[in-house]
């Protein structure tokens, strides 16, 4: 090959490579963790170590924090994020940083440990996308929170609200130390909060406290990072994401999963989604740079090492084959997933939905993770899903949530377990330590009910029947359920697999392998006694469009067939169908001609409850000027003259699942005396027919009269139509009659049978 040819081939390869990779890039979900277009500035404020006294706390606390913001604030107001760190050492000795203190305020040579600076990396990312990010210090509460029964949670809520009050002041009239720099720059009705560890439960308490105060601030998204969950408060009506680190040495029972589990079915009007993200190699502390050993002057600790073995094959730092995240990866993973969540629910960037909603299990590149290192649970809002089997009652192994029959054949120990004694549900795995079954209930609080499915034959199955009224699945996008391998009863050599079958009323079967959609059926790693492995639930989502060859309007059975792995045991919950993104957005309107060219349009669109709806009418009647369009829900429009028009209704719905939906409905409307009477004729209905005692007349323009004429041409009844019903006197006998309806545009004739 000549040099020239070689060069040509190389250039061709480069072009092909670039084209191919460009295509790939377009095909992928965008990466939420990359820096945005804004340059970012940072500032701090400190009103004193004892500047505020929460009502529900014995001590005064500091009012101190940082703010990251776009350097150019001219495009404001910007959405707001508030971060709350967790419980950590409070002070260090500036003369010997190895000496730390758990007191407050710091005294003598001791200075505060600035835990609130530990999430600056995420604050910087978000500020670069146009957010104002506030991170507040919470050392005083940490120093005294175990002296109060709630672990300081209400005090944390009050401190957050105090900071928001302060920022509301900066946003309206200004104040020290920022003067008027932030006036008008914060959108206090679009706020996301993130709390780590005790701060995680703190932000849940805060969202509830803000609601209790009448929602003076718009809390639109709440993220709990490796949180505690002492009080088992349940947050509804606000999108929530929990992050659970598998190698958490501190909150090692991953109790934050209950924020997700507890919220699923306890508010039947909750339109907002819940997420729980499992990071397989993350510990508790590396999310915060100040708590990370070696990256801050004092107080850093590896929480796993403090309590557990250094040599665990998954989480032990001294095991050369461990699968822990290094400090950089842990922060990158959090940065990417937190950014996806906030940019979706605060920034309304719905392009990130696939990352959170398990229809793209490849993590964003900036997270530095692969699809075996992160798993997501997704619980859509109630109008975005249709529950087949919630698995929340003991009877759910025989009858599902939609009253369909549930059957199992050949399964080992099938039944509902895990909800704890309060739900009369036995322990799924009694031999495990509490850390190993985070979802389970205990003697104090109910947990996640689970269905155990163990198999040893390819003929074994678990099946949910779908009753006739619910068999049309065409408005749904995916089948989804949560699951975890029941590791004590499964071998560890490879991921489990099985089939999901949909069966229609004619007996046609469509089958898909679960392994095509997930890596979640893995044998959980680690050997730390009492702590690892852990049973953690993750969502599997399978698009219904992949189930071909069956009648999707008549799906009778959803069947788990264990015909892939020769044996295994899984636990499942939350079998449901996910609605198509815009669900039932049935846009339509009715109309009535009031006078010659005056038409009243009545909006009959059916959208999902709780969505924010915007209407837009356009009548294609340019001569009517500004009246040619309207944003009213219902509208009367006077057309400018005879002619044919195409009035349209555009409905925009900001769904609470973060998706913006748009749908349109148009009609052809001809306005001329003859055309009007033709349209009226088609639209007028008379019922019942046969009639007995009355005639119900719809679709007429008033004033109108009715004349009833028998087969001999005699008028037997004349009446003015005032409501919709005209009553028939007993003198009218059984027979066929002609009904003449006189409207402002002429007469319409219909035939009716009276049957006495």
């Amino acid at each position, binding site marked *: 090959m000549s040099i020239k040819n070689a060069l040509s081939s190389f250039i061709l390869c480069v072009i092909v490579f670039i084209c191919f990779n460009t295509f790939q890039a377009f095909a992928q979900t965008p990466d939420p963790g990359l820096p945005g277009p804004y340059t970012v500035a940072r500032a701090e404020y400190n009103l004193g170590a004892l500047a505020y006294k929460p009502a529900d706390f014995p001590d005064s606390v500091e009012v101190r924090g940082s703010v990251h913001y776009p350097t150019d604030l001219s495009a404001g107001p910007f959405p707001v994020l508030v971060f709350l760190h967790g419980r950590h050492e409070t002070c260090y000795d500036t003369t010997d940083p190895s000496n730390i203190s758990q007191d407050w305020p710091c005294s003598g040579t001791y200075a505060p440990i600035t835990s609130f600076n530990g999430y600056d990396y995420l604050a910087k990312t978000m500020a670069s996308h146009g957010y104002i990010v506030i991170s507040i210090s919470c050392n005083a509460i940490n120093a005294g929170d*175990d002296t109060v029964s709630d672990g300081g949670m209400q005090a944390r809520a009050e401190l957050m609200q105090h900071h928001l009050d302060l920022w509301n002041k900066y946003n309206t009239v200004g104040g020290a130390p920022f003067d008027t720099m932030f006036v008008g720059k914060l959108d206090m009705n679009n706020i996301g909060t993130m709390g780590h560890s005790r701060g995680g439960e703190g932000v849940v308490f805060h969202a509830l406290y803000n609601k209790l105060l009448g929602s003076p601030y718009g809390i639109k998204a709440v993220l709990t990072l490796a949180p505690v969950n002492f009080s088992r408060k349940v947050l509804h009506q606000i999108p929530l994401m929990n992050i659970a680190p598998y190698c958490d040495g501190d909150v090692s029972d991953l109790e934050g999963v209950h924020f997700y589990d507890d919220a699923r079915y306890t508010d039947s009007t909750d339109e907002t989604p819940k997420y729980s993200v499992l990071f397989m190699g993350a510990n508790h502390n590396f999310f915060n740079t100040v708590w990370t050993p070696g990256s801050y002057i004092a107080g850093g600790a590896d929480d796993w090492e403090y309590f557990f*073995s250094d040599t665990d094959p998954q989480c032990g730092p001294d095991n050369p084959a461990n699968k822990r995240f290094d400090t950089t990866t842990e922060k990158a993973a959090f940065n990417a997933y937190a950014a996806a969540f906030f940019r979706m629910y605060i920034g309304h960037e719905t392009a990130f939905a696939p990352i959170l909603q398990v229809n793209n299990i490849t993590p964003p590149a900036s997270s530095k993770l692969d699809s075996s290192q992160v798993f997501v649970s997704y619980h859509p809002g109630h109008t975005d899903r249709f529950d087949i089997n919630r698995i929340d009652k003991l009877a759910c192994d025989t009858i599902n949530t939609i009253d369909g029959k549930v059957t199992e054949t050949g399964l080992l120990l099938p039944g509902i377990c895990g909800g704890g*004694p309060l739900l009369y549900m036995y322990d799924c795995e009694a031999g495990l330590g509490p850390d190993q079954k985070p979802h389970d209930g205990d003697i104090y609080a109910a947990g996640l009910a689970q269905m155990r499915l163990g198999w040893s034959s390819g003929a074994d199955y678990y099946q949910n029947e779908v009753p006739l009224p619910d068999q049309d699945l065409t408005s749904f996008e995916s089948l989804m359920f949560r699951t975890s391998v029941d590791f004590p009863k499964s071998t560890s050599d490879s991921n489990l697999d099985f089939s999901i079958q949909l069966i229609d009323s004619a007996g046609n079967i469509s089958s898909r392998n679960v392994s095509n959609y997930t890596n979640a059926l893995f044998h959980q790693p680690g050997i730390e006694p009492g702590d690892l492995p852990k049973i953690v639930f993750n969502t599997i989502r399978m698009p219904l469009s992949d189930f071909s060859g069956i009648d999707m309007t008549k799906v009778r059975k959803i069947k788990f067939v264990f015909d892939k792995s020769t044996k295994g045991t899984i636990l499942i919950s939350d079998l449901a169908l996910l609605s198509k993104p815009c669900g039932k957005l049935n846009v339509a309107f009715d109309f009535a001609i009031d006078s010659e060219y005056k038409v009243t349009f009545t909006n009959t669109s059916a959208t999902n409850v709780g969505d924010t709806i915007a209407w837009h009418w356009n009548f294609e009647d340019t001569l009517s000027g500004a009246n040619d369009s309207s944003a009213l829900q219902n509208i009367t429009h006077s057309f400018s003259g005879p002619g044919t028009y195409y009035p349209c209704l555009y409905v925009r719905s900001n769904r609470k699942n973060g998706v913006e939906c748009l749908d349109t409905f148009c009609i052809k409307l001809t306005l001329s005396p003859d055309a009007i009477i033709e349209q009226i004729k088609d639209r007028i209905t008379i019922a019942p027919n046969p009639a007995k005692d009355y005639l119900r007349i719809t679709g007429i323009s008033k004033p109108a009269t009715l004349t009833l004429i028998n087969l001999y041409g005699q008028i037997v009844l004349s009446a003015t139509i005032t409501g919709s019903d005209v009553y028939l006197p007993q003198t009218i006998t059984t027979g066929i009659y002609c009904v003449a309806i006189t409207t402002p545009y002429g007469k319409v004739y219909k035939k009716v049978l009276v049957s006495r």
Partner: protein
Amino acid sequence: MKNLIVLFSIFISIFLSGNAIAGNKAKIVVSTVTQKDSTISFTLISSKPFYMGGSRYILHIGDKEFKLSKQKVNKGTGVITFFISVNDFNGLPDGSNIYLTYGHLTDDTQNSEELSSKTSGKYWSLGKFSKTMLTK
């Protein structure tokens, strides 16, 4: 009495120094049990500072749990004091197991021996309870 305190101090010193070569897990013992007004202060000391993190230390005496506490660092060792009402204290049966957990480590059984085997890294057995532990 003075000799007893000296002996107790020596025991504690030996106990804690032994921990330095015993491994990672902190050695924790009951230090003092005192009363002020209607509150009993039940103090434990540890060979290293009590971890200051998200979970709570919980003192279990028999089937009772006590969570209200305050922790401090004292020259590289840890001190944690649990606050128990006198009424609760007087209701505790002598001979009950005393143990400390980091986190709300309970399951369906609440059996301390079984729990110990399931929560090894976060469970410390502290002996048997007696009301005579109270130093007036």
